[in-house]
C-alpha cells in the first residue's frame, strides 16, 4: 500500500496480474497464427475457447466434470475429516502422537498413486478405490498441518481455559479449534490440491468418465484442443478452491494474518 497515503497514485497488484495474463495469451495467439509453434500441439487460445464452448453446449464435458468433482469432493472431504480428527488427537495427546508418528513417517513418503493397485486389490476395481486413494493422498498434508497447528498453540491458552474449569469439549471448542485454524486451513489448501492431482492421475487408468480420462483420451487421439480445455477447467477449479480457502482464512484467521504491519504485506 502507499505509505501513509504519501503517494496518491496507486495501481493495485491485480492489475499487473491481469495485464501479464493478457500479454501471455496474446503472445501465444500470435505465435500460433504466425506459424512459429505447432497448432497441433499448442492450439491457439481462441481455438481452445471455441472448443470449450462447443464441448459444453454439446454436453460432452458435463459428465466428465461431474465425475471428477465427485471424486475430488468425496475423497477430499473424507481425507480432510480423518486428517483433522486424527491431527487434533495427535496434537493434543503426546501419547497418541508417539504411537502414531512412526506410521505417518513410514506411509507419508510413499507416492499414493503407487498404493492404488493395493487399494484396488482390497476394495475392488470400482469407484470406492478411486475415492479412497484420493482421500489417502489428501489425508497426510492435512494431518501433518493439523498436528503442527495444535502443537504451536501457546500453552498459556490452555492454562487460561483450565483456570475456568474448562472440560475437554470446551478446550476443543474454545482453544484448539480457533488456535489451530490457520494451520488447518493451510493444510486443507495443500490437501485439496493434492486431491485434485490424485483424482486426475487415477482417472487416467481404467475409467469411463472424468477429466483425467478426457485428457488422456485427447492425447491418444491427438485432439490437443480438448486436452487444453481440460487443463483450463482444472485451473479454474483450482482458482475457485483456493479463493474459498483464502476467504475463509480472511474471515476466521484475520487475528493471525493482520497482526504486525498489515499495510505493506
Amino acid at each position, binding site marked *: 500500500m502507499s505509505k501513509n497515503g504519501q503517494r496518491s497514485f496507486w495501481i493495485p497488484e491485480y492489475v499487473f496480474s491481469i495485464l501479464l495474463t493478457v500479454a501471455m495469451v496474446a503472445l501465444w495467439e500470435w505465435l500460433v497464427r504466425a506459424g512459429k509453434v505447432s497448432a497441433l500441439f499448442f492450439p491457439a487460445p481462441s481455438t481452445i475457447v471455441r472448443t470449450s464452448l462447443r464441448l459444453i453446449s454439446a454436453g460432452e464435458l458435463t459428465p466428465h466434470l461431474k465425475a471428477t468433482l465427485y471424486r475430488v469432493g468425496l475423497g477430499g472431504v473424507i481425507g480432510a475429516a480423518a486428517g483433522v480428527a486424527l491431527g487434533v488427537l495427535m496434537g493434543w495427546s503426546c501419547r497418541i502422537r508417539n504411537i502414531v508418528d512412526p506410521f505417518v513417517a513410514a506411509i507419508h513418503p510413499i507416492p499414493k498413486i503407487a498404493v492404488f493397485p493395493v487399494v484396488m486389490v482390497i476394495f475392488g476395481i470400482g469407484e470406492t478405490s478411486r475415492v479412497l486413494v484420493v482421500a489417502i493422498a489428501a489425508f497426510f498434508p492435512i494431518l501433518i498441518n493439523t498436528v503442527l497447528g495444535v502443537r504451536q498453540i*501457546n500453552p*498459556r*491458552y490452555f*492454562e*487460561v*481455559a*483450565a*483456570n*475456568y*474449569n*474448562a472440560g475437554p469439549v*470446551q478446550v476443543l471448542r*474454545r*482453544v484448539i479449534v*480457533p*488456535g489451530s*485454524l490457520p494451520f488447518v486451513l493451510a493444510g486443507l489448501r495443500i490437501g485439496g490440491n493434492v486431491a485434485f492431482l490424485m483424482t486426475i492421475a487415477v482417472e487416467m487408468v481404467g475409467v469411463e468418465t472424468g477429466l483425467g480420462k478426457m485428457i488422456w483420451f485427447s492425447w491418444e487421439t491427438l485432439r490437443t484442443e480438448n486436452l487444453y480445455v481440460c487443463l483450463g477447467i482444472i485451473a479454474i477449479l483450482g482458482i475457485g478452491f483456493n479463493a474459498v480457502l483464502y476467504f475463509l482464512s480472511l474471515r*476466521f*484467521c*484475520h*487475528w*493471525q494474518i*493482520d*497482526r*504486525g504491519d498489515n499495510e505493506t504485506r
Partner: protein
Amino acid sequence: MEFQCRDLCMQYHTRRGDTVVLRDVNFHVAEREFVCIVGPSGCGKTTLLRLVAELIQPSSGDIVFSNRTRADWSRIAIVFQDHGLLPWLTVFQNVAFGLRLLGIGRHECQSRTDAYIGKVGLASCADRYPYQLSIGMQQRVGIARALVTDPELLLMDEPFGSLDAQTKLIMQDELVQLLHANEKSVVFVTHDITEAVRLGDRVLVMADRPGHIREEIVVPLARPRASVFAKSREAEELERRIWSMLEDEVRKSLGIGE
C-alpha cells in the same frame, strides 16, 4: 478464600535434568487478606502462583484450602504475567471468556463484562483484538478477565508490570476500591516495593536458588491507604527494610557482589 502452602517443593524436568525451583515454601493466606510477594527475577514467583491455581502439580508438599473442596476451585482467578489473552477473541470476548466457561447466562455475561471493561478504561476498545492493543491495554484486559468472575481468591502476577507509572497508580486505586467493596483474598506478585507496601497486609520476600520465602513482613497500616504522595513514615521505613533485604537477594541471584 483461606489457604495454606505446606512444604511446597517444585522441580521442573528439562532435557538437561531437573532443576529445583521452589524448596520448602510455607505460607498462609487468610480470608480477605492481601499478600504481596516480591523477589528477584527467576526465583519462582510465577511458579508459585501456578501451583496455587493448580495449573501445575507440586513435586512434594501440598496446598490446603480451608473448609472448601477442590470442586470450588473455579473461584480462583489468575492474572497472567504475559496476559494470556486469546488472540482470536475481541476484548469483550476475552473478558467474557471465564464467565462463558463458568456457564453464566448471556445477559448477565454482557452486563458484567461491560462493567469491568469500563472499570479498566477500555470501553471504547471492546471490539478490538489483542493485536490492536498496546501492551498496557492488553494487561488491563487480563485484569478485567480475572476480576469479572468475582473470584474468592485472586492471583495476580505482576498485573501492573507493563503499565505506565500514572495508569498504574490509578489501577491501584481501582483495585483497592474494588476489594474494599467486595473483599477477597489476593496474592499479588510485584517488583515494585512501594506498590507492595501500599497494597499488602503482608509482604513475602522471596530468595533464589532454590526459591524460598526469606522473610514475612506484616504491614501494620490501616487499609485503604493513602496514595504514594502522602506516604507515612512507617511505610517508608518498611520499604527501606524490604529493599535492603531484596537488594541482597537480587545481587546474589544476579551474581553481582557489593
